[in-house]
């Protein structure tokens, strides 16, 4: 896995993805299916009702994020009241250290994990392994990715980059079984292997979908049942949440469940929704003896403080923006180089790991706006991408570009735009620049199929014909055009279409 240590890494990553036929097939199929399922589910709900749900979810998010300190303190107090432990983690390393030390104190040898982007974000697995603790992923997709020694490439379909054939090969290689491409049989095999691991584990680690402030309840949403086993079988349950996962009360939950299930997979409701409040109060109850909730900042307070990027905290991780994104569909999740891919990843990553390290990502979008249209909480993703571009180019927050070549490229690009702005400041300069461009084309251009002169600009012309500059611009033709239009209007030779009279009277 390539990390985003250098801005140029993104280009290498996506070029590799574009020429991988198996990946291309997997991406087209899986994103298409997920999106179709979502669209069907929406059709059942109806457009008007869907917009009401979105508006309500957004209003709850706005209110909660505006009053985050209040709700987080309320949540923490209620978790502690019901017997849970709270740990406020400022950074990823704080969170890792807490978990590793806890595991060591409890003599944990095996920890089972449910799918959690947050544990990916804090890079928990390597830390556990370094401490001699085996971390076992129990979500089928995550299990596949872990067997392959990769990272998830989608927020909720971690192994989206693999075809069923890829998975069959992987299982044959790693589990020593006969090759079988039948999906339900492969799932049954994984289930058999994982059951054993659940029984061995002394610690279960999960993420958090929602945390309800006024009851101290953690809500987990899933389809496989592995989360329920993770949080109930081992004696110690550790749940990790970003500060944005809190919602005020139970009655705020239904709208998010409706939106999340439909947006992610087209389901009315996910197969399992677990409500976990503290620890058991008697031995007759089910569940772990210990519950730890880690509430993580890791750069989120900075998002909260930035009015232009605050909406980053509204995301409910449904993955719909990935499925609909034409760029994600072409390059897949690994190309984004870190944990969160797609449009939301292009917004989160620069804020979480530094704008200088992920400077390429906000530019990896045509700003087509399809992500904003599907987002269940109406996050204005294109606007935030534009804002990040502005921060990266003009506020000097990302000047630490790693290579000399990149610094030169940045300098040249900025110079081009400075020149451009100067050249179009007045129409006189604009005309001079247009004539200069034509002269350049006449001198250095090659003839295209139609005999017009075009410049070979490889980043365009490698795959597309260049459009030649017109011999005479519109403004040069205008005096004749208006003369002829006036004559036409006066002579009334051309048949005119009658406009509604109210319009003609203006």
């Amino acid at each position, binding site marked *: 896995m390539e990390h985003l240590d250098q801005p140029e890494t993104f*280009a290498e990553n*996506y*070029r590799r993805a*574009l020429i991988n036929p198996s990946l291309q097939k997997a991406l087209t199929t899986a994103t298409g299916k997920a999106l179709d399922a979502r669209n069907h589910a929406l059709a059942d709900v109806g457009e008007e009702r869907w917009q009401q749900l979105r508006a309500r979810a957004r209003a709850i998010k706005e209110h909660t994020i505006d009053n985050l300190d209040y709700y987080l303190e309320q949540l923490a107090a209620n978790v502690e009241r019901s017997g849970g432990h709270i740990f406020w983690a400022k950074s990823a390393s704080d969170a890792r250290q807490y978990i590793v030390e806890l595991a060591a104190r409890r003599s944990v040898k095996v920890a089972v994990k449910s799918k959690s982007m947050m544990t990916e974000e804090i890079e928990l697995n390597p830390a556990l392994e370094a401490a001699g603790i085996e971390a076992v992923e129990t979500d089928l997709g995550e299990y596949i990715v872990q067997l392959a020694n990769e990272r998830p490439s989608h927020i909720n379909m971690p192994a989206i980059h693999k075809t069923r054939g890829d998975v069959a090969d992987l299982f044959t290689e790693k589990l020593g079984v006969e090759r079988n491409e039948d999906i339900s049989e492969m799932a049954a095999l994984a289930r058999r292997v994982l059951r054993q691991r659940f029984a061995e584990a002394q610690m279960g680690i999960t993420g958090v979908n929602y945390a309800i402030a006024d009851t101290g309840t953690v809500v987990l949403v899933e389809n496989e049942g592995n989360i329920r086993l993770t949080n109930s079988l081992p004696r110690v349950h550790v749940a990790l949440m970003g500060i944005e996962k809190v919602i005020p009360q139970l009655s705020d939950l239904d709208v998010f469940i409706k939106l999340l299930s439909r947006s992610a997979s087209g389901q009315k409701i996910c197969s399992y929704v677990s409500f976990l409040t503290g620890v058991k109060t008697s031995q007759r109850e089910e569940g772990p003896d210990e519950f730890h909730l880690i509430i993580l900042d890791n750069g989120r307070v900075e998002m909260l403080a930035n009015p232009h990027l605050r909406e980053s905290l509204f995301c409910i991780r449904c993955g719909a923006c990935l499925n609909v994104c*034409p*760029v994600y569909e*072409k390059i897949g999740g690994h190309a984004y180089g870190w944990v969160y891919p797609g449009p939301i990843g292009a917004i989160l990553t620069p804020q979480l790991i530094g704008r200088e390290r992920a400077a390429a990502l906000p*530019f*990896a*979008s*045509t*700003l*087509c*706006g*399809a992500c*904003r*249209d599907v987002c269940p909480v109406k996050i204005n993703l294109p606007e935030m991408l*534009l804002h990040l*571009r*502005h921060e*990266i*180019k*003009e506020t000097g927050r990302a000047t630490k570009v790693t290579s000399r070549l990149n610094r030169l490229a940045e300098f040249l690009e*900025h110079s081009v*735009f400075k020149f*451009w*702005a100067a050249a*179009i*400041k*007045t*129409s006189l300069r*604009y005309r001079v620049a*247009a004539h200069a461009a034509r002269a350049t084309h006449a001198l250095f251009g090659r003839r295209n*199929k139609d005999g017009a002169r075009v410049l070979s600009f490889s*980043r*365009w012309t*490698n*795959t*597309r*014909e260049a*459009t030649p500059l*017109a011999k*005479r*611009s*519109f*403004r040069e*033709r*205008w005096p004749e*055009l*208006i003369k002829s*239009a006036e004559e036409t*209007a006066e002579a009334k030779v051309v*048949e*005119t*279409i*009658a*406009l*509604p009279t109210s*319009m*003609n009277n203006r």
Partner: protein
Amino acid sequence: MRVSLFITCVVDQFYPQVGEAVVQLFTNLGVEVGFNAEQTCCGQPAYNTGYRREARAVAVQMLRLFERELQTSDYLIAPSGSCTAMVKNSYRELFSGEPELQQRAQRVGERFYELSQFLVDVLGVEEVGASFNGRVTYHDSCHLLRELGVSSAPRKLIRAVRGVEFVEMHAPDACCGFGGTFSVKYPEISTAMVAEKAINIARSQADMVVACDASCLMQTAGFLSREGSNVRCLHLAELLASRNGDC
């Protein structure tokens, strides 16, 4: 009624025939047309690349020009969804922290229209007397569709052209992959996107693909031409100004 054209820099320099078609179209409709040759560009290339200082300088100039035009014209019209969205939507963000400029941009924006939306929603015209013999499909340009919410107006106009057989391609609203500087920053991704668009165009068996933005046409036609496709790419205005079954 009088309209003043914001012709856009792309049409001015690369596609003047689109501008001519717009003039022809309004003349046919009996609408008086104006064009202020002091205009240059809306500023979107710099804005979208992150250079707001440069974009703002250009936008202030254009805003002044638009206000002058609206003293003698009823509306400003651009043959582009993207440039129209820049003026109507993005100028507000570009002028953030400058309420006076924002208000002026808001007032100009209220009388600034993209061509197809203006024809159908403001003039109430669908049939413009055009005729073209052939199968035509329509590509939704992203900013027209998602920033301005326009999808039915251009289709109504195309369907009303005499001799046209209108066909929808698969995923007409999928981005063509242009995206301004995106198309040169990440040419391989941009090409992969337009390649998929080209497949959908071919499957529709259309003779012609029509769009309301010259930049989508630059990308799509550039790719189709390289691939040796016979499908023509035309701006809506060119189709609407067509006569005698040809254009």
